[in-house]
């Protein structure tokens, strides 16, 4: 078998996998969200017998979807920026300074990821109540999310800091650059992909996070995931859940594609040896 043929087969296999993995669930979610309440979608039909945007309009008008979206899209960018800012000093130390026990610290930073989210959430909220932060729910969730997603941010940014080349910093200094100019010319270009990746990942985690948003926020602070879960409980209506999950997931996919493009356009010379 020629190499070209093998490549073709693998490409089709990958394509097939993508269809099974992404396209089918999406299609089903879209179909469910379009089910008109006049005629239920029963298993004996391949497609819903009657399709309309009724559910979308209904949820938009009659549920707390607007508020939940506003909350989520206020919260997630704030969490992304706060987490990135908080991660910077530790990431700088892990990426650029040599100190004894550095490897241990790197491991410790990642340790919180081992604990399941719900377990952390239950005890974390207890601390929030003790701190009195529960009164300002937006702030409490912002704080909690920032702390929870810090390991990801530190991990990504410390690797980013490692890629900053010392000779670029030295060259900038040698040519008379101030501290600010040194950051601009030597650090920022190398950190940019890491910063983007951190912002995006934290944004997505925050948008999708349920446990803390639910425990701290309920009953009067709704985000998209808590709204989704209220539609999954006793009053489970599949078409409504489909609408909300699509609202939850579509921006993420768009952002992912955007990041993919961004990382691809990042200057390849930054990571290569010369230049």
């Amino acid at each position, binding site marked *: 078998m020629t190499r070209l043929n093998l490549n073709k087969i693998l490409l089709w296999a990958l394509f097939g996998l993508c269809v099974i993995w992404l396209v089918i669930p999406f299609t089903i979610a879209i179909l469910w969200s379009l089910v008109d309440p006049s005629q239920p979608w029963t298993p004996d039909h391949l497609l819903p017998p009657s399709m309309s945007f009724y559910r979308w309009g209904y949820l938009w008008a009659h549920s707390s979807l607007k508020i939940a979206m506003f909350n989520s899209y206020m919260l997630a960018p704030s969490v992304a920026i706060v987490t990135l800012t908080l991660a910077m000093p530790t990431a700088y130390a892990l990426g650029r300074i040599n100190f004894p026990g550095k490897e241990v610290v790197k491991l410790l930073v990642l340790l919180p990821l081992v604990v399941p989210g719900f377990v952390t959430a239950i005890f974390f909220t207890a601390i929030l109540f003790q701190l009195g932060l529960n009164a300002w729910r937006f702030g409490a969730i912002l704080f909690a999310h920032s702390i929870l997603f810090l390991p990801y941010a530190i991990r990504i940014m410390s690797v980013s800091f490692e890629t900053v080349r010392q000779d670029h910093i030295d060259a*900038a*200094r040698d040519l008379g650059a101030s501290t600010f*100019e040194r950051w601009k010319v030597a650090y920022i270009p190398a950190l940019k992909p890491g910063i983007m990746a951190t912002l995006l990942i934290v944004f997505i985690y925050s948008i999708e996070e349920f446990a803390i948003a639910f425990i701290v926020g309920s009953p009067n602070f709704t985000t998209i995931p808590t709204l989704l879960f209220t539609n999954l409980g006793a009053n489970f209506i599949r078409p409504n859940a489909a609408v909300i999950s699509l609202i939850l997931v579509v921006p993420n996919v768009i952002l992912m594609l955007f990041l993919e493009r961004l990382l691809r356009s990042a200057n390849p010379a930054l990571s290569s040896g010369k230049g």
Partner: protein
Amino acid sequence: MKAVSVKNASMHFGDFTAVQDVSFDVGEGEFITLLGPSGCGKTTLLKMISGFLQPSSGIIEIGGKDVTHVPPERRDTAMCFQSYALFPHLSVADNLQFGLKQKRLLTAERKQRLQDVATKLDLTAQLDKLPNQLSGGQQQRVALGRALTMRPSVVLFDEPLSNLDAKLRDSVRMEIRKIQRDYNLAAIYVTHDQGEALAMSDRILIMNNGRIEQAGTPHEIYGTPNTSFVADFIGDANILDAEVIGEEGAGRWRLGTQIGELIAASAAPPVAKTLKVCWRPEKAQFGPGTENTITADITHRAFQGNYTDLFVMIASAPQRVQWRDNAVGLADSLTMHIRPEDIIFLEAIA
């Protein structure tokens, strides 16, 4: 006035001494090379001059001013890095102007200097390109140009040619030297390549174990090395242990060595009764002479194109001989002589 003066500079890292009590001056327009094996302290010394390292003791002066405690961004030096360290996201023009922008030079002056350097280094066609679109040689020139636009008191080179292939290295070497002369810049050039040092320098400082082992013009260093380290590091040398048996007239000494008794002629007397001496392989003279005639057994032959390397045994001491005439020395043994003035006195044997 001296462009750079280093006075009794030392650098300690914990227990390790990287540079020990080094002093030297660089005159205006002078090209100095710091030459030595890796770990000899030459790069550390360069970092002390550029300001990236603070000497543990001693004084660094640039343009007559004490800059020992001045940080690199405020020193009148410009460095050419081994890796070039070009900013990959900036165009060639922006790389070249980077230092001038930091200095907040007037736009007209900046443009003029940029044009000047770009013309001299043949980079005018590359100004809008990014560094990774250039060849290695061109990147090297941008790195040099970025330093030159600063019009510094001294340009510092940290093994700038080690990333280029051999052919290109020769031409860039000459180019660097020409431009350094054109601008009448003082230059300190760090390398471990002895050929580079001999070809480029006004003066070479040979470093070993954090000290300057010998300083002098390339001719002095090659012709009269002071120690066996220098003799061995620059060019090839046959080094022998010798005992001074007696003086044979003015400036001539009779020596006892592993390869027999030799007559040596030197302006400077030997430093001790037992010492190291050396002779260069290419100084061997074919056939018997009036003095120092030696018969050697040839153990190995290596054809090098323009000469032949002969590895010979002289009284069970391995020596090396280089003949220009490739036809010579095809026999198993050969007779040769060494002129007394070609035997060089080195350091005493402790």
